[in-house]
């Protein structure tokens, strides 16, 4: 096998082996360190994939579209594991987790990483489906890990809705295979992305339409699009905070990535229905719905979970609009949202520890009692709300301006949604940051490093994006059609 083949293997095998090891190792300190080490190694091999790419096979592929998703995914996986090491020690101290559940947690964490990487590198729609399903399972188990009423309810709801979504996606996958099989013949060829995208012009458009509706509903449930989002806030609020960060930052992206791949297949067929209007509608509905829902949130993690729905709506809207500029904005927004939202959840995890509650009403005066925490939370909220000069502002600005140029009427609800969400997030954040402080001051400066790294990247991206990255984004945006 070539070096590149080993690297690709590393992205999949390192987390899988680590998951098995972590299931055996009893000591939580060692396993937390091993978790960080495995995530770091996975990240390193994914970065190396940028330079050395293996030949695409029938089952696995590394191409322009997925390579940066892999790097982003493993980067956030790594920083989250660093955050998780500190966070988990506290959970053990207060007795919310036991050493046994912790061992399970670490094993599941690496299992999730392996499944997500597999979903990203899969060149076979069936294999990708299996990987997304495994990723769902591991997160369900982690959401329910506290075993409280709320956690079990959230896990159950996530389980049932996620399973239905995944079932829909499988039906769509089968129909895509039927469409491909008539053209390229039976066998694994007819399920490979590369073949699907190349040959889709000859597929039966009616079959593709049927398939896409199911795929949009199915993977859309996993993305958290509005009528199908019910699992998302609960799962974010009741699970351990590192898992909320991974859910928002990575798993939603993986599901969206699957949708994008299928959208490319649809785009190759001129007679099938344009996926754009469907995606624009679902995106706008999610954005507006979530933006208004943001106002009445009482729980800090739920607040940012709704903000994830809002941003997924923006991203799906951008890809639905299509064209080089909107796709570019969508990709940029997807990347920046991952980084910002996971940074926010890192901070929120510490806030909940420092104040002993997740209730927004009981969190006051953070900048007085915990200056570092308070300002980081404020900075993160500014970033996610789209305040200049943070990167999210850039991508939103690009999206709005390209929408105004092409469909001025669609820009109205888009801007309304953005502003409403902006106001809600800022209102809540200011409330929590200022006022009479409560709780004991405490410092854990090292724990802030992952959040600072993420927010730093987002800030830099708002001012200057290196030319190679811009070139890559443009290339992929053109591929997406």
């Amino acid at each position, binding site marked *: 096998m070539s070096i590149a083949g080993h690297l690709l293997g590393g992205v999949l095998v390192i987390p899988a082996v680590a998951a098995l090891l972590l299931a055996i190792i009893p000591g939580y300190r060692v396993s937390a360190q091993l978790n960080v080490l495995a995530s770091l190694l996975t990240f390193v091999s994914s970065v190396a994939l940028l330079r050395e790419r293996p030949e695409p096979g029938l089952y696995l592929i590394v191409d322009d579209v997925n390579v940066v998703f892999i790097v982003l995914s493993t980067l956030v996986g790594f920083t989250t594991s660093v955050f998780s090491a500190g966070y988990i020690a506290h959970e053990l101290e207060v007795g919310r987790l036991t050493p046994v559940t912790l061992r399970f947690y670490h094993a599941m964490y690496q299992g999730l990483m392996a499944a997500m990487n597999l979903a990203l590198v899969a060149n*076979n729609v*069936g*294999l990708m*489906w*299996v990987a997304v*399903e*495994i990723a769902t*399972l591991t997160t*369900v*188990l982690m959401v*329910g890990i506290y*075993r409280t*009423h*709320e956690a*079990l*309810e959230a*896990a*159950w*709801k996530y*389980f*049932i809705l996620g*399973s*239905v979504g995944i*079932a829909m996606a*499988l*039906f769509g996958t*089968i*129909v895509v*295979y*039927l469409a491909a*099989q*008539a053209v390229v013949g*039976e*066998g*694994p060829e*007819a*399920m490979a992305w590369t073949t699907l995208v190349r040959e889709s012009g000859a597929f*039966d458009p*009616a*079959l593709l*339409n*049927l398939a896409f509706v199911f795929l949009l509903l199915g993977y859309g449930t996993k993305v958290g699009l509005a009528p199908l989002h019910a699992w998302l806030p*609960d799962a974010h*609020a009741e699970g351990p905070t590192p898992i909320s960060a991974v859910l928002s930052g990575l798993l939603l992206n993986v599901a969206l990535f699957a949708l994008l791949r299928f959208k490319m297949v649809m785009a190759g067929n001129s007679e099938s229905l344009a996926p754009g209007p469907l995606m624009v509608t679902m995106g706008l509905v999610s954005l507006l719905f979530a933006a208004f829902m943001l106002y*009445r*949130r*009482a*729980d800090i993690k*739920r607040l940012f979970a709704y903000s994830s729905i809002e941003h997924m709506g923006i991203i799906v809207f951008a890809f639905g609009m299509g064209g080089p500029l909107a796709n570019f904005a969508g990709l940029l927004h997807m990347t920046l949202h991952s980084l910002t939202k996971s940074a926010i959840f890192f901070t929120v995890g510490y806030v909940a520890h420092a104040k002993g509650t997740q209730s927004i009403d009981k969190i006051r005066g953070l900048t007085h009692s915990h200056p570092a925490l308070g300002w980081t939370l404020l900075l993160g909220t500014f970033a996610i709300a789209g305040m200049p000069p943070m990167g999210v502002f850039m991508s939103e600005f690009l999206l709005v301006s390209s929408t105004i140029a092409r469909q001025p009427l669609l820009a109205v609800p888009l801007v309304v949604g953005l502003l409403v969400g902006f106001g809600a997030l800022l209102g809540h954040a200011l409330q929590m940051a200022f006022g009479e402080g409560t709780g004991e001051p405490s410092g854990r400066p090292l724990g802030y490093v992952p959040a600072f790294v993420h927010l730093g990247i987002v800030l830099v991206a708002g001012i200057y994006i290196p030319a190679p990255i811009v070139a890559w984004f443009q290339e992929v945006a053109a591929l997406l059609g």
Partner: protein
Amino acid sequence: MTTALQFDIAHLLAGSLVLVSFMLLYQARMYALLNLFALHAVVLSLSVAWQAYIQDAPHLYVTAVIALGFKGVLIPVALHRIVQQLHIHRAIEPVVGVGLTMLIGIGLVALSIGAVIPVTVASDSLAREDLAFALAVILLGLLMMVSRHNAVSQVIGFMSLENGLVLAATGAKGMPLVVEISVAFSILIAFIVIGIFLFRIRERFDTVDLRAMDEFRGERR
């Protein structure tokens, strides 16, 4: 054997699966529901075995055996024990009345035939009718999940939905990974069942009725 007969038998088996799905919809007793689900799985495994035979695809026999052994025997037995231990054998409260549910079910079958048959003119007739039946089973499973409040019958609804997916996958000629997908699904179901059992949803929530769980949610009152 003539192709017409092969076709008829495949048709008969897939049609029976839709029929059993309908029967699942109006069951009022938990044990009857479990037995019917076992029947659903047996019909599915016959259907899959028949597809394996006429498509000359030996790997599909594995899927048939999984359907028979796992979903036809193991899962119903496990659920029987859960129902016994949690004392919920009488409690099925449909949200919507039986008559209305059946009417909606008929509508869904018409919808799936109306949606699939016209778009699959180019495919061979066996695959297209199989697909229509499979979609009907999937939609009926969904209907069952939304028309029941109780966790065990929701799981049965989900499993019947999944049987429809396996039917669709085996009907698509030469589709790779069918066995792998059915194994992945079995793992998923095993987790659900173990989940109900381990977390003792009844013990935690006093009832497996999902409405009761909704009340624990912080914000929506």
